[in-house]
């Protein structure tokens, strides 16, 4: 360990931070502390609860450990450390600055765990009330995988106690929704309507948005708009779309359960629906009722479209929400590392540990299920109804993945945000419960990173087909971080009804204006426009003009159809009425006979058929604006290294990482743009003005794989050299075999 402050070297009193600083220096810092009032630039509505100083924060910079003095604060938004050191004026560090919280700030809702350091021991803190001794160190693990070490050894005992209690109380104790910072923030800020439009995100909070969407996909369903006051069901959004044959009576029957909610229509006319499933397995009086209701709903789906219906009970074949939570808790531990030693110790059996967490396998299962659904829609032209208990967890994951694979619009930045609005926010994903930001004990069971699982799956797709996505890896990482920044309405509620009722309640005590919660899509709240440039993937291949032109023409039923066998149920215009009737009759018969048994078990050898489907798709030329299928073989699913390794100094590749490719592309693009500009200018005026493009940006040698999240601070860095057991010591007879020279012929 090295200290930048310990100029004269210190007394080796304790094996902690103490030894690096002489008493004089401490006095000096204390004096400094009293001289300047330090508080962060508070956000609107932000209030400081308590503070303490001097506090030491230990940081690992390019593998050197050092400490920084400062003040630790706890506000209603964040835990904040204000360094005594002058802020580094690294231009690049400012480049990707989050306007809401800085590198030394932890939004309260972002705190995952707190550990107390007692001398050499580390204890998980669950409550602010400690029996004997207060810890001298606080270790904060964040949901965005940052790790903070604060030492309270120099603060006044009272202050230390207060700040410890304050942080633990505000971060870990149960609280009411109104205490979440978004409420104080929303009262004090004005919504910036103008910024919201860039990029255009469809919010799906009006019937027009839905009507537009069904028109876009040429769906043939009906829009239900009389749930605007949630009179049909509080579980459904204000506006939704169902098969035309679903009656008003059907809608109100089981509190929204069992209603096939339209997600997306395939160009062939078949569509994807999702629903919260009814408890069909129950052996009681109501079960028969459910069954016949479900039968009716399925018929409604089939009749409108003249296609067969495939139902997919997701909880039968995918991991449960609890499995997901358990797996992720294991997985994230690999990245919350206290020190270099831990890093290399966990490196030894790395791949087996990864496998042990099952996280990548869960991602694979979700992607595989989505491919299965895609196959039904694309190859068999079957309607698909996915269901699960609440219809708002894995249903959201699968339906959004399916749409992302099919529809290039959702692979644009605006489209992707609209998709999340449609499937997740309006689809009633219980963000509040799944994140358990309120730390309610009774909600601990429902905490699960389902939305993160979706983002992970998207990342895998994006890794495999980078030119198909307009948004970047950095965008996904930032989005995953934003879940835990308690400012945005997007991730704050359990359903549209929940949000509406809270908003209504807020209005009642004589308030004039409604609360202004920004949505996460208003990126200007977090980043300035320069930083937002990082959200765009420079590898994205926009549809060229030649490609665009034929799209405007009425598309023939679809070209791709011919390459894959289509189902017999496909509507053909030449079909006579009688034939049509026969078809539907037999369809109904088939439904009646097979339906219920087919619900209960997922089809056999789905994997083999999916593989075949993938290979058939793979043989065709790849179209980045067409259907995309992920490759799911073992080695293709990878670790999202930007998200998980960005804060670990040992894992940073200086001068490397995928950022160098993006940098090169961005440079080239800028250069081409400049050259174009030059040509234009020269064409009109005989005045040449050349601007150095390369001078503008830093060279990629100075970046690291964790860019833009962290920057290498010093030019001369030390390489990370593995320590500890270099390899798992295998007892192999070969290793003891004599060396080669004695075996050879020579």
């Amino acid at each position: 360990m090295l200290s930048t402050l310990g100029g004269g070297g210190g007394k080796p009193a304790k094996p902690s931070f103490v030894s690096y600083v002489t008493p004089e220096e401490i006095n000096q810092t204390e004096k400094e502390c009293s001289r300047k009032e330090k508080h962060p630039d508070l956000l609107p509505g932000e209030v400081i609860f308590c503070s303490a100083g001097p506090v030491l924060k230990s940081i690992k910079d390019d593998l050197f450990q050092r400490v920084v003095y400062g003040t630790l604060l706890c506000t209603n938004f964040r835990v904040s450390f204000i360094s005594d050191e002058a802020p580094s004026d690294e231009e690049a560090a400012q480049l990707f600055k989050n306007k809401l919280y800085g590198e030394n700030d932890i939004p309260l809702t972002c705190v995952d765990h707190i550990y107390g350091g007692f001398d050499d021991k580390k204890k998980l803190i669950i409550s602010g009330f400690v029996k004997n001794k207060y810890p001298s160190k606080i270790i904060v693990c964040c949901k965005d995988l940052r790790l903070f070490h604060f030492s309270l050894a120099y603060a006044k005992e009272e202050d230390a106690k207060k700040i410890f209690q304050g942080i633990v109380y505000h971060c870990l104790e149960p609280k009411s929704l109104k205490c979440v910072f978004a409420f104080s923030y929303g009262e004090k800020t004005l919504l910036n309507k103008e910024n919201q439009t860039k990029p255009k995100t469809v919010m799906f909070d009006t019937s027009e948005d839905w009507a537009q969407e069904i028109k876009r996909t040429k769906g043939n369903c009906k829009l239900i708009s009389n749930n605007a006051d949630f009179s049909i069901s509080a579980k459904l959004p204000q506006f939704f779309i169902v098969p035309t044959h679903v009656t008003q009576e059907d809608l109100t029957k089981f509190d929204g359960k069992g209603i096939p909610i339209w997600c997306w229509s395939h160009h062939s006319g078949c569509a994807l629906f999702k629903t919260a499933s009814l408890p069909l397995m129950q052996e009681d009086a109501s079960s028969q009722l459910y069954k016949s209701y479900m039968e009716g709903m399925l018929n409604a789906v089939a009749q409108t479209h003249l296609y067969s219906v495939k139902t997919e009970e997701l909880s039968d074949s995918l991991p449960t929400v609890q499995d997901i939570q358990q797996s992720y808790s294991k997985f994230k531990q690999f990245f919350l590392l206290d020190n270099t030693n831990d890093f290399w110790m966990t490196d030894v059996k790395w791949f087996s540990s990864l496998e042990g967490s099952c996280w990548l396998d869960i991602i694979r299962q979700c992607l595989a299920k989505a491919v299965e659904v895609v196959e039904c829609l694309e190859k068999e032209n079957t309607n698909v109804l996915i269901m699960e208990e609440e219809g708002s967890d894995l249903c959201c994951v699968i339906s959004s993945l399916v749409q992302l694979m099919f529809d290039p619009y959702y692979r644009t930045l605006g489209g992707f945000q609209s998709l999340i609005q449609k499937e997740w926010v309006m689809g009633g994903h219980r963000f509040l419960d799944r994140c358990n930001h309120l730390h309610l004990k009774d909600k601990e069971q429902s905490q699960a990173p389902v939305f993160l699982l979706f983002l992970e799956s998207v990342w895998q797709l994006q890794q495999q087909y980078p030119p198909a996505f307009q948004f970047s890896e950095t965008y996904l990482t930032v989005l995953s971080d934003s879940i835990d920044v308690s400012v945005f309405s997007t991730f704050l509620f359990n359903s549209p009804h929940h949000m509406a009722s809270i908003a209504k309640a807020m209005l009642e005590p004589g308030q004039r204006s409604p609360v202004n919660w920004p949505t996460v899509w208003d990126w200007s709240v977090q980043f300035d426009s320069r930083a937002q440039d990082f959200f765009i993937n420079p590898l994205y291949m926009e549809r060229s003009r030649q490609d665009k032109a034929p799209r405007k023409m009425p598309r023939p039923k679809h070209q791709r159809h011919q390459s894959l066998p289509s189902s017999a149920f496909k509507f053909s215009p030449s079909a006579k009425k009688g034939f049509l009737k026969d078809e539907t009759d037999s369809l109904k018969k088939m439904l009646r006979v097979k339906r219920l048994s087919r619900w209960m078990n997922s089809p056999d050898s789905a994997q083999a058929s999916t593989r075949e489907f993938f290979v058939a798709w793979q043989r065709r030329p790849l179209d980045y604006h067409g259907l995309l299928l992920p490759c799911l073989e073992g080695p293709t699913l990878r670790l999202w290294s930007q998200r998980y390794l960005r804060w670990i100094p040992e894992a940073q590749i200086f001068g490397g990482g995928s950022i160098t490719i993006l940098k090169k592309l961005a440079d080239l693009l800028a250069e081409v743009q400049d050259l174009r500009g030059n040509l234009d200018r020269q064409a009109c005026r005989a005045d040449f003005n050349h601007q150095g493009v390369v001078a503008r940006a830093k060279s990629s040698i100075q970046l690291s794989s964790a860019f833009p999240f962290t920057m290498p601070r010093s030019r001369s860095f030390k390489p990370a050299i593995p320590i500890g057991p270099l390899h798992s010591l295998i007892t192999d007879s070969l290793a003891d075999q004599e060396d080669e020279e004695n075996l050879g012929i020579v």
Partner: protein
Amino acid sequence: LPGKCLSQPQSKNVMYICPFTGAVSGTLTVTDYKLYFKSLEREPPFVLDINLGAISRLDTIGMQIGDNDMGMEIVCKDMRSPRFAFKREEHPKMEIFETLTKHAFPLSNDLLLFAFLYKEKFPVDGWKVYDPVAEWGGGLPNESWTISRINSSYEVCDTYPSLLVVPTSIKDDELKRVAAFRAKHRIPVLSWIHPESQATIVRCGQPLVGPSDRRCKEDERFLQTILDANAQSHKLSIFDARQGSVADTNKAKDGGYESESFYPNVELNFLEIPNIHVMRESLRKVKEAVYPSIDEAHWLSAIDSTHWLEYIRLLLAGAVRIADKLESGKTSVVVHCSDGWDRTAQLSSLAMLMLDGYYRTLRGFQVLLEKEWLSFGHRFAARVGHGDENHANSERSPLFVQFVDCVWQMLRQFPSAFEFNELFLITILDHLYSCLFGTFLYNSEQERVSKVCLPSKTVSLWSYINSQAEDFTNPFYVNYENHVLYPVASLRHLEFWVSYYVRWNPRMRPQMPVHQNLKELLILRTELQRKVEELQRDVSSLRSITSTPDHGPSPSHTSTPLYTTV
């Protein structure tokens, strides 16, 4: 291909049992270079071809289908083992099997390797890529190091090149005594010298210390001279690639390592890298894990259990330590293992890749291989077993593949630091086995140059590569110059090289390369640059004719106060 001949009428109605898409029957053709299988049953026609040089083992196997069928398994060095089935009545003598055996293992059948028959002409001569004197350039000889011709007829060391760089102050008879003290007479010689600090990478064989702790005054002085040649450091670091325990075993058998008490100012580090047999076994396990199919659910633990990436990590970590010692420690380094032609070559060349941007260029990398691997006697013939049917020979080991894998890992971590691309690396590995080019044949420079005279009888791989350099160039390349690159030697950043090891699996086939739109962009840029230059030229010629104060350069900069004096 020029020089290739059909050596056998085709065998029809052969069934290829494809592990990915099922059995397919078609025609099997064997030439003296390749095996072709073509089936018109599928659309598009199914084609499989194998370089005969890649064949490690040929087996006939009893098939389950019936007594009338014969099976043939072709175990390849490039991670596949295709199987064919024949009807016994149609191929009674299995002639094709015999022809195949003959041409796959020409050396065991008194035939020439195909490289000697191959007569293709290329516009550039790859044999001229590496010229040792020119490579050392103006830097040498200097006050400490000189180019010695003591080994010009390979008398001192038959596995070393004819030109060696040794300390100026060491006399020839001293060198000979040092040679007697080093395994296989492989004396310490210069591999690389730091342009600024003069710290060096020196490679050699192990000292023959033996159980009685023999000493060699000249050897001790030799290392002291290496230390003295670099004024920046008072230490010399020796990196022994072996496991400490193995080095001890070697010591008991007349080998050994430098004792820190006899060699003052020397620090000895063991890099704990296992031997060639362990590596061979590891790659065999890799093949088991990827061919013919991958167990999805246990893929990660399967990869862990091969230890392949673990060894890659060990090598990279060792090379990082060496490079760091030179760069930050400004300390000279001596690298050896037992003989100094396997792990030593891996480590020294990896460290040089990290330290010196030149070796990261297309041509520089060729020079690196020619120098560190070929001229310093990595035993390619023994390790690969070109044309030899003895597949169980324990001398065989995929050390060069392992090295190229390390390079690929670096390429992954630094996608824009290398001038060459992945295809270049895969092409090198394909022709490591193919026996089409002379480059990787034989064990040493002596065999290649003075015994066989390879350059005049065969074509160099670099002739082929440099004739179409465009294909092997990385469009993302940014010249990092001499910026030192330290790859992260953590399994978190090491990846399994799917596009090499699993390339036969059609499901893993890469899609259209991402590079496409970058290439387009590069072309566009060149185009625009050309246009801008043209216009600029026009403008400047215009200016020279019609230069008046009004049209001069922007007034804010050069405004001559013409009117203020009035």
